[in-house]
């Protein structure tokens, strides 16, 4: 089987997604239904609202992915179903996993349970098939800030991570505090374009040592500065916060690159869509003479194509899963830890 196709399903947080991905990692379709509008007024993802929304759009999203790939629900023309089984919100994961199992039984194809994080690590592969290893992947989103050495598909080592807030979480909290709404990342990014990044004196935490990062102090410093001076320009707040966050992320990423002698720096996760982070990462990689893999915005945020890519790898490594497999909201991707 050289031309196989996987239908992939993702529903771990607030995007309902399905995709069809070939064995040689061509994306035949990738459909994402975002719930951002549903959660906006609450300033963050509400698990019960997410679970309800996934259920209503799951089957239409799967159908759309099949149709875009030239197939249909009753003639799916696929060889397996890959689905995110964790980590994520349990009420959301269950919807995708239950749908995937039912489809596997109805179509008589195997099931592959995929770790959402591994999906993010494979996202770069879809657009940059020639990523040179070892690579360092900086995974940054509302739930994650991790520096991971990727020696090849399936071979990961955790080099560093946030010790408190995820980078995306800090963006959301700062945005909410200054009244920019949810999600905070795009709003801050846009405003920062016209602001002075040196307007506020903000800390760069833990710059001196190791590969771990901390964003809770930065967030608090911004809030204190805003409380002290209500004349501050929003654009200056955004630009100063963004400069501090990106300084830390890029400096640590390049330290990780040095440590493992990486040939490529890969960005992934929702915050990898941030224009300043992309610009500065590219700049730092050019200077260091290594490749910088910047996935398209659609590949940075949650999608099912990346789950399909990871699914092919899991199928080759471990074979299919039993239909009894459960969802694990805190499933840790198997990684060596830097000691």
């Amino acid at each position: 089987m050289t031309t196989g196709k996987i239908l992939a399903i993702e529903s771990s947080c607030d995007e309902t997604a399905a995709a069809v991905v070939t064995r040689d990692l061509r994306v035949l379709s990738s459909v994402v239904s975002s719930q951002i509008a549903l959660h906006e007024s609450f300033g963050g993802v509400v698990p019960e609202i997410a679970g309800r929304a996934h259920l209503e759009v799951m089957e239409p999203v799967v159908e759309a992915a099949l149709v875009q790939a030239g197939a249909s629900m009753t003639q799916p023309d696929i060889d397996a179903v890959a689905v995110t089984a964790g980590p994520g919100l349990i009420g959301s994961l269950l919807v995708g996993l239950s749908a995937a199992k039912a489809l596997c039984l109805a179509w008589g194809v195997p099931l592959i349970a995929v770790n959402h994080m591994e999906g993010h690590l494979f996202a770069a592969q879809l657009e940059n098939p020639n990523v040179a290893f070892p690579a360092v992947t900086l995974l940054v989103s509302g739930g994650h800030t991790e520096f991971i050495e990727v020696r090849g598909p399936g071979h990961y080592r955790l080099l560093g991570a946030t010790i408190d807030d995820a980078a995306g979480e800090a963006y959301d909290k700062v945005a909410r505090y200054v009244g920019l709404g949810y999600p905070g990342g795009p709003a801050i990014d846009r405003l920062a374009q016209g602001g002075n990044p040196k307007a506020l004196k903000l800390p760069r935490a833990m710059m001196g040592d190791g590969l771990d990062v901390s964003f809770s102090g930065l967030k608090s410093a911004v809030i204190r500065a805003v409380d002290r001076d209500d004349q501050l320009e929003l654009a200056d707040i955004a630009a100063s916060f963004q400069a501090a966050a990106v300084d830390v992320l890029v400096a640590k990423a390049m330290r990780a690159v040095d440590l493992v002698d990486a040939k490529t720096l890969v960005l992934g996760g929702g915050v990898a869509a941030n224009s300043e982070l992309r610009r500065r990462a590219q700049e730092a990689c050019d200077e260091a003479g290594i490749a910088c893999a910047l996935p398209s915005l659609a590949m940075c945020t949650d999608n099912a194509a990346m789950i399909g890519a990871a699914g092919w790898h899991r199928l080759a490594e471990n074979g299919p899963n039993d239909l009894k497999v459960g969802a694990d909201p805190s499933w840790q991707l198997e990684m060596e830890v830097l000691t």
Partner: protein
Amino acid sequence: MNILAIETATSVAAIAISSDEGTEEVEASRDMHHVETLVPCIQDHLRQRSWTMRDLDLIVVDIGPGLFTGLRVGVSAARSFAAALDCAIVGVSSLEVLARQRRQDEDCWSVIDARRGEVFAQHFLGDQAVSDPLVLTPEALGQLAGDQTVLIGDGAQRYRDVFASMGLVVNEDVVTPSPACAIELIKARQLTTGQDLRSIVPMYLRDPDAVANFHVLDRFKS
């Protein structure tokens, strides 16, 4: 007509498979293991009959009210089956299925545990629902229910002492909705041609927590 019924409204997951030869009901699991056990249970029992999913003509699914995570597992699977097989699907109410399971009581309240100190309940006289499905405390239900009625379901049993102290009778035989009864109900109501797939969603009766507790989010402000 070959029918599969899916029941996940309580902590018990169960299925029933029915053909012209009769109906067989199987419990897949207790204690909220719906996502692990529901589809494998269906697989096993189709195999025993040497059937495939393609032999099914109708999917019946309990849409609640009941435990949200359980309902989502059942409804998500049922909708995917129906779409993949292009087969008819119909939703039934857990409270109506329970009411059908009583054997002789004319006047009854179906009562399902809604957790957090509340129950989902609905009043039936004979085959007729005479109230809307409600979510309320056992005490409030006790005041609503007349002393001629019988309370049935896992919610009735869980709050048996509350109801007993108010002079109400709890049926001890019927605990959770029976998928075999769900099939009977669908046949009796001649609903076997099915409904629009996308109209099949759980009956929640409760707003999501966050909508009710919007102010709680303020604590994330700093």
